Each structure stands twice: as C-alpha cells, then as structure tokens.
C-alpha cells in the first residue's frame, strides 16, 4: 500500500516508447551520421558512410557538442526533419 509513504520516484516517468518503423531498403533515403565526439567515432562513421552510399543512400554528417550531454534540441530537430534514418557512433 502507498498510503503512509512518500515515494522518492517521479511516477509520471513514461514507459519506453516503441521503436520507429525500420525501412525495408536504404536506397534513396537520407541518412544522418551523428558523431557524438567519442574518440575515433568519426573514423567509424567514415567507413559506414561509404557502405551507406554504396547501398544508395545519401548521407549527412552531424556532430554533438560533447558526448556526455544530451544532444541539443535544435540538433535533434534538424536530424528528425532532414533524415529518414540516423546512425550514431556511440563509443570509442
């Protein structure tokens, strides 16, 4: 029973959202390659970019200010507006 206790949790935190639908093919899609500034992340994205272009996708590069903070909302909006898909280079 909750009556009698004060919860330390914010119970309004929403459950996980479902994943966005996955495209069947990359051909003709615009894909953003997001460099979060982890060490050597850009090198990884360079290789991925070649493969994506081979698969018929157009690519766009974006960079986070620093890996340890959430991306700026402007950057998120820009990626969401101009891309069909995004690849994030997460770690070193």
């Amino acid at each position, binding site marked *: *029973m909750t*009556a009698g206790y004060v919860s*330390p949790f914010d119970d309004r935190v929403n459950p996980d959202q479902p994943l966005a639908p996955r495209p069947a093919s990359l051909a003709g899609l615009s894909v953003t390659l997001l460099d979060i500034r982890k060490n050597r992340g850009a090198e990884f994205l360079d290789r991925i970019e070649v493969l994506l272009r081979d698969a018929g996708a157009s690519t766009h590069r974006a960079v986070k200010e620093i890996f340890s903070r959430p991306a700026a909302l402007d950057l998120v909006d820009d990626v969401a507006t101009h891309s069909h898909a995004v690849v994030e280079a997460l770690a070193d």
Partner: protein
Amino acid sequence: MPERAAPLQISGIDPEPLTLAGLVTGGAALLLFVSEECPTCALTMRNLGPLCGAWQQAGMSCTAIFEDPLDVAIRTARRCGWTGHVAAQAPPYQTSRDYGLISVPSAFLIDGSGAIQGQVTGWDQAALGRLVEHASALTAGALRPVPPAQPPTKPGCSSKAALDPELAAAIDAPAAGDELEEMFERGWTDGLPVVPPTTERVDKMLSGRDGAALLGSVPPAMGELTLARLAACAVLAGCRPEYFPVVVAAAQAALDPAFNLHGQAVTTQPAGQLVVVNGPVRHRLNMNTGMGALGPGNRANLTIGRALRLMVTLTGGAMPGTLDRSTLGHMGKVGFCIAEDEEVSPWEPLSVERGFAASQDVVTLIGCDAPQSISDHRSRTPEDLAWTLAWAAASTWSTNWWPLTEPSVFVICPEHAAMFREHGWSKQRLREFMFAAVRRPARELRRGETTPLVHQSDPAAEIRKWSSPEAIVLLVAGGAAGRYSAVLGPCTGMGYQIVSAEVEPR
C-alpha cells in the same frame, strides 16, 4: 444485448482522469485487470505489452488496471514491457467489483458505445486472439494478431476484490511489520537497508517547507524533484531533519547544468559525486572533519552524501545496471561527503576560494573517483612532501592519459598540512609546485591510450599531468596523528564544472 461497461474509478499517471468515454474514442478499449503479485498477470502483460503501441495507433486503447498502488503499478508495468496506459485502484477495488472480477488477469473488450464485447479470464492465447480479432472489426485500422506463446493457457490468481475484507486488508498491510523488507520490494533502496519514508518522517524532514516546491528534474530519467521527494530520499538515507538544508543545497548544486549530472550519472567511469561541506554548519551537525573523515562512523557525513546519491539513483533513475552504466563503480557512489577541517587548515577553506565568506554554510560538488591513500612519514621539506603528493596522482585516470583537465582532489591530512604551514606555503604555492612537478617526456606516454597532445608533441616535449594548477583542488581533513593524505582522481570527459551552493541560512 451486450452488457454496459461500468464507469472506471481508477487513477493514472496523468492528472486528467482516465474515463471509459476517453478510452473508446478510437472504436475499442482493452481493459486488462491485473495484480502485481500474480505471475499470470506478468506473463499476460509481457506477451501483450509490446503490441499495445500498435494497437493504440490502430484505434484500440490498452489499459492495465492494477489492484495495487500506482507507483507499484507503474514499475511492474515497466518491468513487464507494458506500453499501454497504466492505472491503479485503491481498496476496496470498486472497479474490479463493478466488473464482477473473480480472478486476475481478466481482459475486457469495450466498444465505442461503452458496451462489453467480450471477456477473457487468465492467460488464454487463443481466446485473447479471438478477442483482438473481434476488436479489429470495431477499429478503423487492423489490429496486429496475438502471436503464439508458451504456455497457451495459464490460470490466474484471485482478484483482491473477491477476497473477504479482512483477508484483503491483511494482504495490503505493509509487509506485516517488516517495513524494511518492503522497501527492498519496492526498490526504494541503494542496496542497503533504508529508513521507510512515512508521511510523518517526511513531514518532519520538511519542517514546514512546501513539499510541492520544485527543485528541477533529475537526470538521467529526468524525474521531477519536489522538495517532498528529496525529503523522502533524506529519510531513506537516515538523515536527521537538521541535515536537510545541506541536502537541499547539495541537490541544487547537482542539478546545475554546469555540473553535468547527466553525464556523470550514466558514465561507464567509476566516479561518484563528492559533497564538500564548509562553514559553521559542520559543527552544528557534529560532522566529522577529523579521524576517519573519509570513512565510516559519522551519521551526518554518511547520510548527507547518501541522500544525494539516492536522489540520483531513485528520482533520477540511475540505478546501477539500468541507466547507471558504471563498469565498476566505487563505494563513494553509496554516499560521498566530506567536511573540511577549516580550523586545522593553514589555508582558506574551499568555499572561500570559491567566493563565499567563511561565515557562510556552503556545499561544493565535485565528480570524483575513489580515494587513493598517499603515505609519507619521512619527508623533511615541503618540497619533498609536495613532490610525493603530486606524483601519487600520476596514475589516476590512466598512466598515459596526460594532461587531465578535470579536477583532482587532494585531501591533505593535518600532519602534512602542518609542514606547509611551518614553511609558509600558501595553497597556491603548493598547487603550482605540484603542477610543475609531475611531467614526463611525450615519448614515455605513448603507450596504449593517450591524449592527442601526447601524439602531436615532439617526443622529448614535457607533458604535465594536469592542464593547469587550477585542476588541483586542495582540502584539509583527517586525524591529528598519521601522515596519510589521499588523492581522488577525476571524472573526465564530462565538460563539467565544480558547483557550489549556499545552505539556506538559519
């Protein structure tokens, strides 16, 4: 003629009430009555939960109605992967009674007019599949079918509404007097026993402050921090009410965006958040600045640091293994609070360095690794001692990752501090000596992972351990006897700044 569905007397996450009329606007509503203790309910939520998002988009709302408190309902639903609405009902579970429940789980399909179109009791994959097929005829979009699952059927448990009132009350009573175990069951803990945050204890902690006052959102889950939730963390940690103003100041400092608690809370590094307390409040709270200052034994030191960490772990959702991804962690992540010995220190307190008056009560937050002890019983000059202290930090973070830009904290013991006092060394002189002392040629640092500066420099160029003297923080604390100081390595890569906050004046 289908039976009319009874109105819902339930509470959900949102401030707006969940009504039947609101749930059937897409053409159909699935009501799933469940209970936290029932394994079949968990099975059903786990099997149906991932489909709820698609079903709701297609026009059938999905609501899990728990016969449990809302906070228990939300956590259970999240654990089971339920992506629909979550609601709770309080004893005597009137909505369960109105729907004639005997057992849970029980699923009801309601059409757009509010009529019951079907009911399934227990986990029955085929029957639930038929219920969803029926629902597809009521909604604009087609509903994804219930996939095959094992076992195909499983009986449920008794609904609490079907129990006699005495038995129901016994089940709902707080763990038959074992409140400490109940805290573990709720997940309101860092792994150690806690003090249950009863309304009475939280009210005492608040001491007349407005519990609804908002302090901000705690990363990484961005849980909203009210003063009441912080007071609940302080109670759980074991704080006395007179400690609470210090806890509040620590929370305010931690939530300053410059501190980047988000990065610190989720990093794979071991770092915790060190709370440094300065000012007269140290004495009012009987904090330990002396023997064992970084260790066990003092309630205020231990519980103030723990209250802050419980805020990060519970309100902020950074429980190790979930959003806290620390590879090893360290015991300072349970609680990490030090009161500086300003009376023994030859220097100005940290708070004064940071622009406050010595008469002000101040907390300062620094991201820190675990303490590494530095023994030196033989140095006879301040230069020798400063050299030993500085070089002890050479392998903090990494043997080769030079320079460090984030702060390293040195806790100087009284006997070591006395050496610098006797020779008239200021804090700044010691800091600059230590900065200058620790340097190596770039070629010796080119092993494994190292910094771009080391790679770019001439092999003979000298690289320093720190990027500036200001990356060295000096505190004084510890027992009067024994020449053991300590260095606390940095939390790096966070782009954060040390943040101080004044404790609410008395």
